């Protein structure tokens, strides 16, 4: 067997000798997202395309089939192997990819996290869709306004382990402390693990076990759609108010039939677009990613880099956009 192995190695060496690399190449960015086949990220990829047309860089994009941390690591290792100049990632596990991204940075690869951050040690810059606090706040304000300032509400989240989900929910709870929300009671937080059927089940559970439930906040695209299905199927459209972060393409129906009066989402295209500009700026050495710097982000104008609460640095794309039955038609075909 040993003989075979050495034989094999020898042969592969021979084959690889033929390959001589190099020649000046354009900047290459490796894009990693949470999961393949998720329209939110497909929209984000469109943002990268847009930017690549403007800046003339190349990019490859991929995400694991099962939204796993290990899957993302495999992809990152692949990118390192291909010698990309920058990696732009929306992480499934903020801490889980730190090590591998560090080893990437050791090899001079610039790392930008977007949508869902990587811990500071594992990134140079984080592109935040908007301040987590605002994301929490606007949803509470919305639901409060919809249910008329009093009654039971619940939160249908994605996974109990999802970092950005938890931050937002934490801010929601902070917001609910305020006196003007005194009459609103957050009865429970349930988790649908970003699986449609489980989310529906959880939502049904809420409906069955909290008869006086007035409103539901679901800060996840999968969850809010599932919640809409459950509410509509129970003929409770309008009786149980719903808001959250949803995809226009998926939610258009429910906004029109009043299951969901209004919901939020930042523009994934802008997110990708901005991440692309930031990556290029880092690669070109125009910025180091330190707080206080700023870079030109094409049609989004100049973006300022700020000190992030987690100690790293970040920049903002813009506050979440409010989708209503009136404006939804302009967006439902976009993403």
């Amino acid at each position, binding site marked *: 067997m040993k003989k075979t192995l050495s034989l094999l190695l020898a042969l592969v060496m021979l084959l690889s000798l033929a390959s001589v690399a190099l020649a000046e190449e354009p900047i290459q960015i490796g894009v990693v997202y949470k999961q393949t086949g998720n329209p939110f990220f497909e929209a984000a990829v469109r943002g990268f395309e847009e930017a690549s047309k403007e800046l003339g860089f190349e990019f490859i994009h991929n995400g694991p089939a099962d939204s*796993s941390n290990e899957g993302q690591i495999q992809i990152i290792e*692949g990118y390192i192997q*291909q010698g990309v100049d920058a990696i732009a990632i929306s992480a499934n596990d903020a801490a889980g990819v730190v090590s591998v991204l560090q080893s990437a940075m050791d090899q001079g690869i610039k790392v930008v996290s977007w949508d869902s951050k990587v811990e500071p040690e594992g990134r140079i810059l984080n592109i935040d869709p908007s301040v987590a606090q605002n994301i929490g706040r606007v949803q509470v304000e919305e639901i409060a306004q919809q249910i008329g300032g009093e009654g039971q509400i619940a939160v249908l989240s994605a996974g109990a382990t999802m970092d950005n989900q938890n931050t937002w929910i934490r801010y929601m709870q902070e917001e609910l402390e305020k006196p003007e929300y005194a009459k609103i009671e957050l009865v429970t937080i349930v988790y649908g693990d970003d699986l449609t059927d489980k989310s529906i089940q959880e939502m049904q559970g809420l409906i069955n076990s909290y008869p006086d439930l007035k409103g539901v906040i679901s800060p996840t695209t999968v969850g809010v759609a599932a919640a809409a299905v459950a509410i509509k199927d129970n003929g409770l459209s309008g009786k149980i108010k719903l808001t959250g972060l949803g995809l226009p393409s998926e939610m258009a129906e429910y906004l029109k039939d009043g299951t969901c009066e209004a919901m939020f989402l930042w523009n994934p295209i802008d997110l990708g677009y901005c991440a692309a500009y930031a990556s290029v700026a880092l690669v070109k050495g125009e910025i180091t990613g330190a707080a206080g710097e700023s870079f030109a982000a094409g049609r989004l104008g100049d973006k300022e880099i700020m000190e992030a609460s987690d100690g790293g640095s970040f920049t903002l794309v813009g506050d979440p956009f409010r989708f209503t039955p009136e404006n939804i038609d302009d967006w439902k075909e976009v993403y």
Partner: protein
Amino acid sequence: MERMISRLPKWMRRWEWILVILILLVFALFSRLQPDNYTIPKLLNQTRVYMVDVGFLALGILVVLILGDIDISIGATAALSVTVMAVTYNQGNGIPFLLAVALMLLTGALCGFVNGLLVSRFPELFPMIITLSTLTLYRGIAYIILKDQSSGRFPSWYAKDLGYGSFRLFGLDVPIMLVCILAVLPVYYIWLHKSASGRRIFAAGTNLTASRYSGVQTGRIKVMAFTLNGIMAAVGGFFLTSRTGSVKYTLATGFEMQAIAIAVLGGASTSGGRGSVIGLLLALILMTGLKNGLMLVYNDAFILNLSIGLLLILIVLIPNIAGRIRRQNTVRRQRMSLQKT
């Protein structure tokens, strides 16, 4: 020829030659398609991703498969074990890391032991069902311990050197963790193929009843095999964690199927009695070459799975057909000799 093939060890070798050929094909193909990236040094580096943690899980499941059982809880076992390690090290103030590692191994052993006990006590239950429920249970416990947190902050020799460091051998950077598994393999090989207890495992897997009648303590062997399997799962988790640098309860989700696939590719049969460490090593090499190559060329997770599925079925299907043809030949030859007389 017939005789040679029909003998067990030779039979094993047949497997390994198929794999060797496949490996050569795969490597030749992709180094043509990706001359710059698909090179020995870079592949060696990739072995960290594709060979080590899954490799250890596969080594564990191999023994269980040889026994004709199956264990789909190894991913969860890995997760629970490293969870225990991480928590004891991080929250248990000032507990030395090595002690935490010892606890991890113990946890793995315990998980495996429980599986083994249940499997040998309830033979009428499919091991898959038992381990399905323990899968949910073990992951659940890890979830209870860790909650939504991920626990990291390990000593740098572990998270950095072991995870990403490498030795310089013959002008090549050989990842330390690759060296680790390559060091374990010979020991494992000798134990499984050259020792009495290894032989008994094969016996029990080939024919449980006959082995029992021959004084083989099949029940004890099952428990032992599952326990070992648990330990190997823990070790796999240990190396995986050295790369992730932190632990979440979702760690190593779905790894069980990958491990089983590797073992089967390496010549193990889920009906028991067959399996080889060398075959497993070759299967690992093949997988590394294939997965990495596909990753470079297609850069698509699903295409990758698709080709692995095909490979899995073909590599099992082909010998079956070959075997049937061979059997027909045997009889035909006997018929000829009959006509002569």
